């Protein structure tokens, strides 16, 4: 069986003489570990290694894609991808020009999780689990830790050859409480682009999560309806990602004339205080990288500036089709998938309003914190809060059962009437699109206030 180092020299040969507009090869080698606790006991420890790759070819606007685990026979795989693309292609390929890049990218010096012994990881998780189980009324808990490092070789028929090493580490803790047949849960979710330090020193947060799961058992049910809602930085970041970020992914837009009309650059979506940005060049976050999976250098892109739509996220194909510049947002979950347009680090820029000012004049409203999940269908979005409190007469009041917020993007962006001064990035999420989930991303925002937001309850 071929090793990843051996494949390097074969790639240029495999491209030679192929009748295609564009061909690329991506080879990945990954090692990963996973530790899961359920209840008091460790349930699973597993190690995995993988080696695989793919070939993607473009001919006359049509794509062919071949993925594999066996690296032998690369030339035949390229031929198959080109043959597939020829069968599909019936027009002229649109593919934005990008200067070829030859580069080797090594991760920055940080606490590489893959070098830390399994025993040390387990000891840390034992400490967290002990904190959870010292809290009364706990029914069970789930702790899932995972880390991985992968080496990626990318090369294309234009002469690019990029080798990158990427790392990721994530931790999710769910605490489940039960009383009289009623089951509640609270979660904590964190991640980093490969720094184990982010997983350490969370004792206080773990304790709070466990206590909240207990408190939810006696929290009142919430009466659904329209409220003034204040979102904490985590949930506001999810809002930016779900409600607007996905709409900015050009693969939804580029072949849909009507959607193009809606997402026309220059259209006003909100007041002048709103700026929404996406960028993989902002260093140190889970969505950060130097080159995307088409070998395009990463950028920082304003999606909304002063309330007006000014940009969107592109692959080379969508950029060419829309006559815009590529933004380096084509990402693939792994070698089994072709790259598609994805977000990286998405956030709302901070403004001036303090949290106290924001809630001061709310007579009855809802303060929502922490993300539990989110989903969008472009026009409609929903996202669920991990924590929710009533706001009464300008003060944060009682804890509520979990709530789900929903709305129409176009209306809701216009209903944001205050943006805080306390930007925080959240690294706990993974983004799903098509069959490619979870892709490491980060979201962030300061506190924001939305008028007339629909909140679901019972």
């Amino acid at each position, binding site marked *: 069986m071929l090793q990843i180092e051996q494949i390097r020299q074969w790639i240029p040969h495999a491209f030679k003489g192929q009748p295609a507009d564009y061909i690329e090869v991506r080879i990945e080698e990954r090692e990963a570990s996973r530790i899961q606790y359920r209840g008091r006991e460790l349930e699973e420890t597993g190690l995995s290694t993988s080696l695989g790759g793919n070939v993607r070819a473009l001919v006359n606007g049509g794509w062919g*894609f071949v993925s594999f685990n066996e690296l032998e026979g690369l030339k035949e795989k390229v031929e198959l991808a080109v043959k597939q693309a020829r069968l599909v292609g019936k027009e002229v390929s649109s593919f934005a020009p990008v200067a070829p890049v030859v580069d080797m990218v090594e991760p920055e010096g940080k606490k590489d999780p893959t070098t830390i012994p399994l025993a040390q990881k387990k000891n840390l998780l034992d400490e967290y689990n002990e904190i959870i189980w010292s809290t009364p009324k706990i029914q069970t808990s789930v702790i899932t830790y995972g880390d991985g490092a992968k080496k990626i070789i990318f090369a294309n028929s234009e002469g690019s050859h990029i080798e990158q090493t990427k790392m990721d580490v994530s931790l999710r803790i769910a605490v489940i409480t039960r009383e009289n047949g*009623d*089951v509640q849960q609270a979660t904590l979710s964190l991640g980093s682009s490969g720094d184990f330090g982010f997983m350490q020193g969370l004792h206080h947060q773990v304790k709070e999560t466990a206590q909240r799961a207990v408190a939810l058992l006696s929290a009142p049910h919430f009466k659904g309806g329209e409220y003034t809602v204040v979102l904490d930085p985590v949930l506001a970041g999810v809002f930016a990602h779900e409600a607007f970020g996905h709409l900015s992914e050009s693969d939804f837009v580029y072949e849909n004339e009507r959607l193009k009309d809606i997402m026309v650059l220059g259209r006003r979506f909100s007041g002048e205080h709103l700026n929404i940005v996406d960028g993989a060049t902002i260093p140190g976050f889970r969505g950060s990288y130097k080159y995307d999976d088409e070998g395009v250098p990463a950028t920082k892109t304003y999606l909304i500036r002063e309330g007006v739509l000014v940009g969107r996220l592109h692959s080379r194909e969508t950029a060419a089709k829309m006559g815009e510049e590529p933004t380096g947002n084509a990402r693939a979950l792994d070698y089994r998938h072709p790259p598609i347009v994805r977000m990286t680090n998405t956030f709302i820029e901070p403004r001036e309003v303090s949290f106290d000012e924001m809630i001061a004049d709310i007579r009855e409203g809802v303060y929502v914190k922490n993300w539990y*999940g989110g989903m969008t269908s472009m*026009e409609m979005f929903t996202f669920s809060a991990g924590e929710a409190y009533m706001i009464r007469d300008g003060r944060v009041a009682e804890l509520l059962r979990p709530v789900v917020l929903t709305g129409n993007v176009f209306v809701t962006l216009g209903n944001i009437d205050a943006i805080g001064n306390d930007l925080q990035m959240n690294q706990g999420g993974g983004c799903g699109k098509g069959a490619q989930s979870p892709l490491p991303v980060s979201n962030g925002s300061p506190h924001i206030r939305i008028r007339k937001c*629909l909140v*679901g309850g*019972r």
Partner: protein
Amino acid sequence: MERVLELAKKAAEEAEVFLASVTETPVGFEANRLKRLETRESSSLSLRIIKEGKIGFATTTKLSDPQALVEMAVETAQFGVEARFALPSQQAYPQVEVYDPEVEAVPIEDMVELGDSLMAKVRDHTPELVCEAGVAKSVGRVRILNSRGGEASYQKSFFTIALEGTLIRDTDMLFVGEVESSCQPITDLTALTDTVIQQLELAKNTASVSSGQLPVVFTPRGVRSAFLSPLALAFNGRMVVQGASPLVGREGKQLFDNRFSLWDDATIAYRPASRPCDDEGVPSQKTALIEKGIVANFLYDLQTAALASARSTGNGSRGRGGMPSPSVSALVIEEGDMPFEEMIRDMKEGLVVEQLIGAEQGNILGGEFSGNVLLGYKVERGEVVGRVKDTMVSGNIYHALRELSAIGREAKWVGSVIRTPALYCPKLAVASKG
């Protein structure tokens, strides 16, 4: 595989090797036309060992280095959980038809033709509809070997057709869609196109419902989006042994409507979720979960069954090469007696839900669902008057399914995981904007 087993047996008391490989050929359509052809080949080898009574686990796609795989499994075993089960020795497996050689033989040109004619039929009804479609075939092989002489292997074929249509008018977006899958080639598009055209018809106008408690009919797709996850979780043996399922200790109790029956079945011929044995080599079976409203059984793999002093129900599944854990195969909800049209005629003011989004984000373990109606219709005096928007439906399955107004007469598969009729709930919380 034999080599891995041999090496593992030297390093540990018990060992089990699992090899899965699959070749998929998807054809993708975007913006009403053919966009890409793909071939995806993958294979992975997993090793589970029991060493000094503890479980070790490792998996790899590098099939040629058995020694490295064994070493990784041994490394994890020192921290592993105590094994409470014995691996199955040689078993008699049921005859479950999941392989049809015709699938592999379907020419790419025919798949392209299927996608094209599917899009053409629905766009014949609504020319402005922008369609994405996918037609895919695949063939997979599974082989399991263990140190107790257990051995199982089977082949499975899979064929699927999916359509998603988007209709945009100003900033109003309508999403319609349907998916059909089988272990045999699909050639008849009638059911798919009928469903999508019906969605387009019912959604022609928009309407708004009032907030409050309203009767709600969930179509089969609606049932999947609201009820599948909480049900699958509640009957999962893992949740049960942890005491996290609200159904723990309530076997034999009438918790659901007395016409409501639910079972899990991995033995239905040519269904994608079917198989002769699970991923631990335990024979597949049909397991009653709810019998006429009464909680009957839970779904177990080997380890959770041992912890619950029960027997594995053949529900040990591995998500992409992971450790086995209990998971539903295919849930089936028994048909009732009311035709869909009659449910609609029965409502003075009510809602039909085709799809909720975000329903699975809440406290699903507690049975709660709360989602935005992505596709749903308002009913007024027994007639669908239009599609609703900016509307949320919330509830808890343990209330919603306790007393149903009716269960639909015709069941259908939604994807490969659930076959269900429409369910008619007398009252659910509906919150609406405007």
